[in-house]
């Protein structure tokens, strides 16, 4: 064992882990990507060769240690190789959101002063060419897919495979330099820089060191016993810290295989073909998947429907208990085993979740019914709580200690404390180095002892030691009469209804709470079809009286449930309206990770909020929208405002 200890001391960078994986797992598959209908694969040895060729090619283009390399594209092996190739020559990879518009890209590229960008296709090339004039430091762009780019000026534009060929051809001249740079990589050097999407203000560049990434990966891999035999599907944005840790950090630490889907649209069928053993998806994904299962079961024959309902009832009763290893009577176990043959097994297979050993969801609260549904099928779905600044992990749920309403216990090596204002603080080996070129923000987030403010309010549950998150600390406020106002708590309850895609609750400093509702076009559209309700557009469906009626019922149910919590009973929704357009990241209303940007919405829809509070029955409004190609237009609508029934709250709480 001393041998492996000595080895792990030398494993102080991702390229070093790559070298180890080539030695230990050289012939095992490291990457797969579906292309031309076939899963193409690369072993660790082949991947290392691709990375080396690219690193040499980058040296040929004159890359310097400390340069930033922007990476913009969907999940493809090429881009993971680019990250490691950049690290190999001492440069810093900066993965970016590929659906960001040219303006957002210009900000990030300008902020880090990127000299190089490695991008997917013509779409990304065009975006960068559009803003290139604003970027004095920018030099070379490398693209993977040559389609449509043949006639472009190739002075500073290169094809990925050409750069690799160039690098490979110049092996003799450039390799000594590559070796020299590899030898210089240290544990505290920058591993990656990730821009946080930022619910307020401009994105910030979070600098993570090799130490942050490797220690977090090691600890979390040990927590869930991850091995080189795992298979993961890399489909979440590469700019997101989670994808970096799962697809680079843990994959290189453990030596497991990263599978890339053919295209974003084929993801569900690729998932089914790969059958990952370790899997992460945001709550929204599970919601959508469950909604589509339920919609299809509605269309199933009567016998099938009965079988499904019967065995789902069994699963709800004992599934989670069996998964957690709690005692379950033999008869129930037999019944569950039959259900597994008839329903759960085939269903999991269709969903691509048959082989899941460890599954995580995070980012938002997940509806308890959704969470229980997956767990009752025997899928080990757990929750974690994390941040880019923590290199993902703050708390995780251990096997056997999984619940829908908590985010688990502190991850190994992480200390968590709740300060007096209710805000959650943590300290860990994963704590980020700094915000790039932003010492003020760094200082206000991380104190001298290394404690970081999460910005979330929460508390530890007595008895179990599990952490519960209530809301963003800065969003938790007081209403006019001093009652606690936690908008996200209520919004989450609303969003658990499949018909509600998004909700925004207002009430800070006001006498009562009100809400904007976004309907889910899939779910409501399907419902409309079943009920013979005709509609021509999203706007028309959203304004339909029967849709209003349905949403009103949901709101009133939520009010009843909120009323039961003494602390938060003031957050019941008195008045609401259904928005005429979907909140959209292109309009700045959501972040790229689809979190609500409250301030911007408050500004943009000030007229609607005023109407919610002045008692009017309807309001005419005009809204600017941005189309996918960046053009702008306006839509106008007259929105109905409804009053919802609220439950009486106890005077005792209100008086406090």
């Amino acid at each position, binding site marked *: 064992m001393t041998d492996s200890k000595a080895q792990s001391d030398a494993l102080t960078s991702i390229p070093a882990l790559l070298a180890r994986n080539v030695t230990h797992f050289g012939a095992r598959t490291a990457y797969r990507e579906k292309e*031309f209908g076939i899963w193409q694969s690369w072993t660790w040895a082949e991947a290392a060769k691709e990375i080396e060729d690219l690193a040499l090619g980058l040296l040929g283009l004159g890359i310097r240690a400390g340069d930033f390399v922007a990476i913009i594209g969907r999940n493809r092996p090429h881009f993971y190789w680019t990250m490691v190739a950049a690290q190999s020559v001492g440069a810093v990879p900066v993965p970016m959101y590929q659906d960001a518009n040219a303006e957002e890209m210009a900000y990030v590229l300008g902020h880090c002063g990127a000299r190089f960008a490695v991008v997917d296709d013509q779409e990304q090339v065009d975006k960068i060419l559009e803003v290139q004039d604003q970027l004095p430091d920018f030099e070379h762009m490398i693209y993977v897919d040559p*389609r*449509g780019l043949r*006639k472009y*000026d190739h002075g500073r534009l290169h094809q990925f495979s050409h750069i690799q060929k160039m690098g490979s051809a110049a092996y003799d001249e450039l390799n000594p330099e590559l070796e020299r740079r590899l030898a210089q990589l240290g544990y505290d050097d920058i591993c990656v820089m990730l821009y946080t999407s930022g619910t307020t203000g401009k994105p910030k560049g979070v600098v993570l060191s090799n130490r942050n990434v490797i220690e977090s990966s090691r600890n979390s891999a040990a927590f869930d016993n991850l091995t080189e035999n795992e298979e993961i599907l890399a489909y979440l944005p590469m700019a997101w810290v989670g994808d970096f840790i799962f697809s680079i950090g843990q994959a290189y630490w453990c030596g497991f295989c990263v599978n890339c889907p053919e*295209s974003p*649209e084929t993801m569900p069928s690729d998932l089914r073909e790969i059958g990952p053993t370790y899997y992460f998806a945001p709550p929204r994904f599970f919601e959508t998947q469950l909604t589509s299962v339920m919609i299809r079961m509605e269309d199933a024959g009567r016998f099938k429907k009965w079988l499904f309902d019967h065995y789902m009832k069994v699963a709800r009763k004992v599934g989670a208990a069996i998964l957690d290893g709690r005692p379950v009577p033999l008869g129930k176990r037999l019944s569950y085993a039959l259900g597994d043959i008839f329903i759960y097994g085939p269903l999991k297979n269709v969903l691509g979740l048959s082989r899941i050993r460890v599954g995580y969801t995070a980012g938002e609260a997940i509806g308890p019914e959704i969470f229980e549904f997956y767990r009752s099928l025997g899928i080990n779905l757990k929750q974690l709580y994390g941040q880019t600044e923590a290199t993902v992990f703050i708390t995780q749920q251990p096997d056997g200690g999984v619940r829908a309403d908590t985010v688990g216990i502190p991850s190994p090596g992480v200390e968590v404390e709740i300060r007096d204002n209710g805000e959650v603080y943590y300290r860990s080996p994963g704590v980020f180095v700094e915000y790039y070129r932003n010492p003020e923000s760094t200082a206000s987030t991380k104190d001298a002892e290394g404690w970081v403010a999460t910005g979330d309010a929460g508390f530890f549950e007595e008895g179990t030691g599990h952490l519960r998150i209530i809301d963003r600390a800065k969003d938790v406020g007081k209403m006019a009469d001093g009652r606690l106002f936690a908008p996200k708590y209520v919004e989450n309850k609303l969003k658990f209804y499949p018909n509600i895609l998004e909700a925004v609750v207002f009430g800070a400093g006001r006498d009562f709470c009100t809400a904007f509702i976004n309907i889910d076009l899939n779910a409501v559209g399907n419902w409309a079809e079943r009920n013979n309700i005709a509609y021509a557009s999203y706007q028309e469906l959203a304004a339909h009286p029967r849709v209003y009626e349905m949403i009103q019922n949901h709101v009133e149910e939520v009010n009843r449930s909120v009323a039961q919590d003494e602390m938060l009973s003031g957050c019941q929704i008195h008045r609401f309206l259904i928005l005429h357009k979907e909140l959209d990241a292109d309009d700045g209303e959501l972040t790229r990770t689809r979190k609500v940007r409250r301030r911007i919405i408050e500004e943009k829809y000030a007229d609607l909020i005023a109407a919610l509070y002045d008692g009017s029955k309807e309001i005419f409004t005009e809204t600017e929208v941005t189309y996918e190609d960046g053009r702008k237009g306006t839509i106008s609508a007259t929105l109905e405002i409804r009053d919802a029934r609220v439950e009486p709250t106890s005077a005792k709480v209100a008086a406090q």
Partner: protein
Amino acid sequence: MSSLTHKEEVPEGGYRTPDGRIIGGVLMDLKDITLRFGGVTAISNISFDIRQGEIRAIIGPNGAGKSSMLNVISGFYVPQEGEIWFRGRKRPPLKPYQVARQGVARTFQNIALFKGMTTLDNIMTGRVTRMKSNMLEQAIWWGRAEREEVENREVVERIIDFLEIQAIRKTPVGRLPYGLQKRVELGRALAAEPDLLLLDEPMAGMNVEEKEDMSRFILDVNDEFGTTIALIEHDMGVVMDLSDRVVVMDYGRKIGDGTPDEVRNDQAVIDAYLGVVHE
């Protein structure tokens, strides 16, 4: 951005487009074509040419004879009078499959796909002219048949990738929305690796977004594979943006021929579209 193309020379009979593309010599020359159905003259004495690498549009009001013209090119109709010259040689009256073998592929106005077959299989049928193995070999799946299937599948997969329809590879086309079916049909035509691609109203019935996508694919096909394209289209905006030269037909006669700008300002064309008082 077109600096790289400056050195290339324009071949004889060709020209350079405003966006810097080089158009070659005459690929197909239609001389004095007249087509009659009994007493009805669908096409009367029309001549025009299609040059190597260009996007050529045929426009005209309803009933002008555009689809008949396309059917003459594809060999489905044999004109009573006139000559068709293809690649410098006079083409005798041929069956449509013989024309297809010569490198002419087409799509149809009212989608003509096998509704029960998958996208993949439909596009595979476009490879039929390239398959040499006989029915027996294919039935026992041996030797040449197997090799051919692998080769053809690869071509088809590249087309699927090109048209970005991976997600519907295994979906029966009858279940697909209209816009996607149109795309699959384009895929099948491309599978024949044609020199001349005929598109009969590729954008009929599409919404703006689908039209934009289809336009992009048509331009990319022309750019990437160098395919010559002749298309019929009703959406004037699309025609004027896409095509290099336009033939205008009305009542079976040619009333205009030239670049989109020339055609747009031609009095006869304006009259045909806006109507004039008949004396």
